[in-house]
């Protein structure tokens, strides 16, 4: 067996931290809930630190894949345990670390079946991490499924509204996506004739013919697109968001939907660039519809989480639009948007989580005047809502800006439609803010307490991240460019 490690296996140590955390949680007796929480926080904190380190340690001048780890896994089929990080995956890894850690803190006060919850949560995140770092198609698929399956129990056991229905729907939907991905993956493997699942090897120009690329691309696009909330395959997501417990909503909207978009990028676009060019019109159309549609439907929603859910559909449409533009800017914007939207939704769900824990309702109509009782919790929500509206100074603005510029250049009409949706998204976000936080204080909520400092930490982290990348977008875009520009230069013209 020939192994290859470029340096200390940082990427594997992220996975190891997750798995060790999982094992530790399993070993702790279920009644020591506090210990389980601390263990979870520690291990998730470790992953955050490693991802942060990787994000900073990545050498942007060299670019390309770094922190590579390669171990043969199933040699007859050319399957390798092949991890690497590049400008596309690092933002997502960082995002996962952030959401993971803050998610654990958000669920600090949860009391039911704590042990099982955190164990499953760790499994979920392991899959997500694995997917973002894997450069082997087989492993990528494995991680994809690993990250989906715990969702069922996480939602069905700890969820709230229509939880079983939502959990079943979500699981089947996403598995249906994988039903499209796996055949296409194997198809590519077989057609390449290279007997390898190595993405780097498969993405060499000329590996696949044009018709093969077109054929495989549409399967991969739709398969991953389901997870990315591409219209009209988005309906699982608002329902899932609503039903899931807060931390799971955070991971779900913040990271899981990114998996879909990342899959489109890493698998579909990397391996089938000609297919990408062929289908980009369709991608742009679906994305533009998704953006407007999500915003307009969000306007009608009365449940806080539904609102966020539909805003996610809209925002993921922006990612899709960026991916469809076939430009560097579009890719930059799309990846940036993955990150920014992830942090933003995580912040939204985290805030809603706190509010729900206090008031026990998510209905916009019942809430009101919360700014008075819990100004800090409200301001976190408002910050995230502003980010969602694309207000400058927060990370989302830049991402959307890049995508819109690219889209406007390439698809003027669809670009204009998408940009017009900014008004609607502003309208529905502000409407929620207005009805939930403004207005006279309600008697029944007058006695609720604001976020204590400790519980505020996760939201603080997320808000600071939003602001940081909002003020210094170069930090992110320079990173993404190390991947997007070489990728474009390598494309066959």
């Amino acid at each position, binding site marked *: 067996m020939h192994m290859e490690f470029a340096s200390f296996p940082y990427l594997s140590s992220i996975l190891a931290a997750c798995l060790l955390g999982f094992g530790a949680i399993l070993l702790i007796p279920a009644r020591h809930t506090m210990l389980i929480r601390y263990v979870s926080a520690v291990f998730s904190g470790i992953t955050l630190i490693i991802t942060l380190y990787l994000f900073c340690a990545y050498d942007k001048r060299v670019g390309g894949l770094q922190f590579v780890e390669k171990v043969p896994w199933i040699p007859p089929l050319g399957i390798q345990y092949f991890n690497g990080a590049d400008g596309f995956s690092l933002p997502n890894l960082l995002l996962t670390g952030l959401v993971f850690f803050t998610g654990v803190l958000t669920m600090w006060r949860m009391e039911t079946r704590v042990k099982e919850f955190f164990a499953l949560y760790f499994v979920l995140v392991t899959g997500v991490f694995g997917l973002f770092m894997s450069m082997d198609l087989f492993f990528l698929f494995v991680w994809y499924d690993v990250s989906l399956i715990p969702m069922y129990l996480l939602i069905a056991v700890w969820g709230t509204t*229509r939880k*079983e*229905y939502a959990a*079943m729907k979500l699981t089947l939907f996403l598995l249906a996506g994988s039903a499209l991905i796996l055949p296409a993956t194997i198809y590519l493997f077989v057609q390449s004739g290279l007997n390898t699942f190595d993405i780097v090897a498969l993405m060499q120009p000329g590996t696949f013919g044009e018709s093969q690329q077109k054929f495989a691309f549409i399967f991969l696009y739709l398969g991953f697109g389901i997870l990315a909330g591409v219209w009209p395959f988005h309906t699982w997501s608002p329902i899932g968001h609503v039903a899931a417990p807060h931390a799971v909503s955070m991971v779900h909207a913040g990271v899981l939907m990114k998996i879909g978009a990342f899959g489109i990028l890493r698998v579909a676009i990397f391996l089938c660039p000609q297919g990408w060019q062929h289908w980009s019109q369709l991608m742009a159309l679906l994305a533009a519809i998704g953006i407007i549609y999500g915003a307009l439907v969000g306007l009608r929603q009365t449940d806080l989480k539904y609102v966020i859910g539909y805003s996610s559909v809209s925002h993921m449409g922006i990612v899709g639009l960026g991916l469809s533009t076939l430009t560097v800017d579009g890719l930059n914007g799309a990846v940036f948007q993955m990150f920014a939207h992830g942090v933003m939704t995580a912040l939204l769900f985290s805030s809603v989580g706190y509010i729900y824990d206090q008031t026990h309702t998510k209905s916009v109509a019942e809430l009101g005047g919360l700014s008075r009782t819990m100004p800090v919790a409200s301001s976190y929500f408002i910050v995230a809502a502003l980010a969602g509206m694309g207000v400058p100074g927060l990370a989302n603005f830049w991402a959307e800006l890049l995508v819109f510029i690219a889209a406007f250049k390439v698809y003027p009409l669809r670009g204009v439609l998408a940009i017009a949706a900014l008004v609607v998204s502003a309208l529905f976000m502000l409407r929620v803010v207005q009805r939930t936080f403004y207005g006279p204080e309600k008697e029944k909520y007058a006695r609720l307490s604001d976020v204590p400092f400790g519980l505020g930490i996760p939201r603080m982290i997320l808000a600071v991240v939003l602001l940081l990348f909002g003020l210094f977008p170069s930090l992110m875009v320079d990173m993404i460019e190390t991947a997007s520009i070489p990728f474009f230069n390598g494309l066959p013209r």
Partner: protein
Amino acid sequence: MIVPFGHVIVLAGALFLLGITCAVCRRNLIMVVLGVEIMLNAASIIFLAGALRWFSMEGQVFVVMVLAIAATEVAIGLALIVYAYRRTGSVDPINFNCLNEQPTGSQLAGFIRE
């Protein structure tokens, strides 16, 4: 071969079909078993035809073997049927269809529908 091979095949096929008809149509477990025996015999005819056609003894060995097998089969079958007759007083296959209570499925369907 005196009789053309094709004729033997047709004969065997007809016998086989007869056996199947017997097994499918008769409302009596014993007759069902008998029908299957007829099917076996039809197969034996084919083997014999094959043996003659290829001048090999294998086909006849088959037939000998299957005689034994058929005997075993009938032994087990009759044991079961007699046992069944003792318990239920009937050998009508229709009386042996209580297992598959119709799945209601309404609960699951309702769940899907919600």
